[in-house]
């Protein structure tokens, strides 16, 4: 203990000084946060407006659809990713496994706990029970897939198709039944990010391939697009799409703010994604392409079966980083296009009659910040884990 202290905190007098200053700052910061959360924070504003903050004016009687989406996605996630078995001697003990689980999911569970405590309705408790059940079921399904021979022999396409059926059906139902103008809060942040990620993926990959193509004109067009988009600020693009997007569409289409922002997010992220994928493609040794050619594969097959899968795997962390920044950037849609997303709503609720002019801004921003922070932080930690699991840079 004393050695640890001396090594880590009091090596020299200079070190000791730094230690004292930094510990002082840290303790003061911790105390202020603690005091704010426990004593001075007036959390009734969050309590009253929780639904508004999370889902906006989403109709109350179709909330079950959202619950369904989350539960089904939890099941799918557990069934696809959950419960990796480590063989034999490497298997961690129960305590280690518990530690690992706490480190991975502790934050999410804690936030879920806070949300349930704030909501405090019977409904939310049932919702939590449903999620936990879905997770358990998902893990069990994954185990069956490993243990039961008949299931193991199913081709991956069918297996994953069946698993993804529930979340996809729920999402389609939700989106079909919804009136986009009523969506808001954290839900719309999630929705914008999710949709843009789905849409920008094919475009980004095509652009990356185009930029590396051997055809000079294609290369030029892709390069111009990528550089132009990367040189422009997202906020101005959003503003521009707010006033100009309808000019580029046939008059019968009337783009709403969600449509406008998804278009911009997609086109914007695709350019960044293209650069990331290009980096991945450059990291693939030339021998891979040559091996593909030696086997007599056509160029398209070489790209889609040999180089691209490896390239995408190599850049998973960078991709997830890009998606995290997209998730954070969805807040801009509120400022530029008046979408009632989380940040916009948080500022709006401080102007309600009961809370007007009494300085509730700290509480609402802390709450919004907590949700965004936990979302991004968990994603980035998971990406590091995936990176380790895939052994990027070690093969």
């Amino acid at each position, binding site marked *: 203990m004393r050695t640890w202290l001396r*090594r*880590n*905190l009091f*090596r020299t007098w200079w*070190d000791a000084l*730094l*230690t004292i200053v*930094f*510990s002082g*700052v*840290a303790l003061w910061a911790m105390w202020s946060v603690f005091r704010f959360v426990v004593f001075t924070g007036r959390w009734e504003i969050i309590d009253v407006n929780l639904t508004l903050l999370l889902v906006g004016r989403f109709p109350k009687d179709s909330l079950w659809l959202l619950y369904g989406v989350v539960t089904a996605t939890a099941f799918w996630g557990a069934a696809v990713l959950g419960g990796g078995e480590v063989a034999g001697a490497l298997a961690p003990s129960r305590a280690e496994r518990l530690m690992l689980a706490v480190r991975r999911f502790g934050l999410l569970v804690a936030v879920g706990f806070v949300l349930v405590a704030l909501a405090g309705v019977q409904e939310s408790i049932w919702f939590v029970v449903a999620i936990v059940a879905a997770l358990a079921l998902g893990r069990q399904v994954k185990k069956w897939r490993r243990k039961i021979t008949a299931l193991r022999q199913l081709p991956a396409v069918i297996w994953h198709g069946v698993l993804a059926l529930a979340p996809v059906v729920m999402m389609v139902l939700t989106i079909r039944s919804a009136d986009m103008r009523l969506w808001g809060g954290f839900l719309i942040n999630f929705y914008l990010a999710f949709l843009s990620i789905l849409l920008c993926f094919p475009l980004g990959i095509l652009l990356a391939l*185009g930029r590396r193509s051997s*055809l000079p*004109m*294609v290369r030029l*067009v892709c390069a111009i697009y990528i*550089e*132009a988009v*990367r*040189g*422009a*600020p*997202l*906020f*101005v*693009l959003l*503003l*521009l799409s707010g*006033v*100009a997007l*309808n*000019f*580029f*569409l*046939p*008059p019968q289409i009337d783009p709403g703010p969600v449509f406008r922002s998804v278009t911009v997010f997609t086109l914007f992220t695709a350019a960044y994604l293209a650069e990331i994928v290009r980096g991945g493609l450059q990291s693939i040794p030339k021998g891979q392409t040559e091996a593909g050619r030696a086997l007599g594969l056509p160029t398209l097959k070489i790209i889609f079966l040999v180089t691209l899968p490896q390239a995408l795997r190599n850049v998973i962390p960078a991709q997830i980083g890009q998606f*995290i920044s997209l998730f*954070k*950037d969805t*807040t*801009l849609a*509120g*400022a530029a296009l008046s979408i009632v997303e989380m*940040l916009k709503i948080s*500022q709006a609720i401080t102007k309600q009659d009961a809370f007007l002019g009494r*300085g509730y*801004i*700290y509480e609402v*921003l802390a709450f*919004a*910040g907590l949700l*965004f*922070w936990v979302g*991004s*932080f968990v994603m*980035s930690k998971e990406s590091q884990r995936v990176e380790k699991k895939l052994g990027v840079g070690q093969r």
Partner: protein
Amino acid sequence: MLQFFILLSVASVLYWLWNNYRLNVAQSKIPTNFQFLDNPSSFSLPGNALDQSAPVRRAFVQGLLNTLRVSIAGILLALLIGTLVGIGRLSKNFAVRTVSGTYVEILRNLPLLLLLTFMNLAVVLKLFPRIESAWVPLELFVISNRGIAIPWFVGSGTTLLIILGCCIAAMILVSSCCKVYSNRTGKKVRTILISGAVFIVVMVAGWSLFGFNLTLPVVNERGSLGGIRIDPSYFALLVSLVLYTSSHVAEIVRGSILAVPKGQGEAADAIALEPIKKMQLVILPQAFRVAMPALGNQSLNLIKNSSLGAAISYFELTQIAQITVGNGSPAVPAFTLTLIVYLAISLMSSLIINIVNRRLALVER
């Protein structure tokens, strides 16, 4: 053949967009040219010569200057703080390491707009006192929710610039002389000390020559008088940009320090360099060579992110565009112009970064 096909499809998509645009514009009869730039701007900017009759063109130039003002200060501060925090993350000291790590992890994972809103609404407008009860630390500054006033020089800006230029030129001259001398004789010269002294001497000489004076800000009834006043929105934008970007810079610096081969640090230890010298002379120069492209990217990001100033009414380019559009200028050309200016800034900066990069890159023989 494939090339032709791809180009054809791209061209047809572009044509489709263009055609829609033409039809829609013809239908709605809005102007699409840049003539609005000559109209009177009909708004004024606080603290600037721009008045209601000045053309919109001038307002845009002023906005561009404001953007550059916040960006340059932001880049310098973010690089400085980010480097320090990045080094701190690798410190042997547990307290320093943890605090730096927490700083990075917290700021990196928050949306910039949230930080900005927090700085503007919660810190500057709420936490800072009203002007009647302004904080006056050391009688030098006046801090209130109308801005921060700091001591400043009396006199014209040009002479100040001339003096500063002379100072910097003298400093560079002296330090290069020192370097030549120490290279020739092999003696150790305290370059930083000497050139700092020269800087101060030249500055004092210039001051006494031109008769410069400092004014201290004081509180009067509705605001502060004297000194120079930093706008609250400028302050909020600058601080949040610096906080956000420095957390990214810190990660880059940490990564590049780790990328310096271990032998380099051990060699520095072997010739008994002090830790600070080791960082300054051995590790950081090599780390920055690796970090340069990523740091350039972060600087560009900061410039682009400064467009968020429009969300808190800092009068930078985007905000000016929004105001002129609100005052009746056609929206599409105004925002397109803004976009083009940002694009030009980015392209020029990346050109500079590329040149610096090429000079820094390891020349392999």
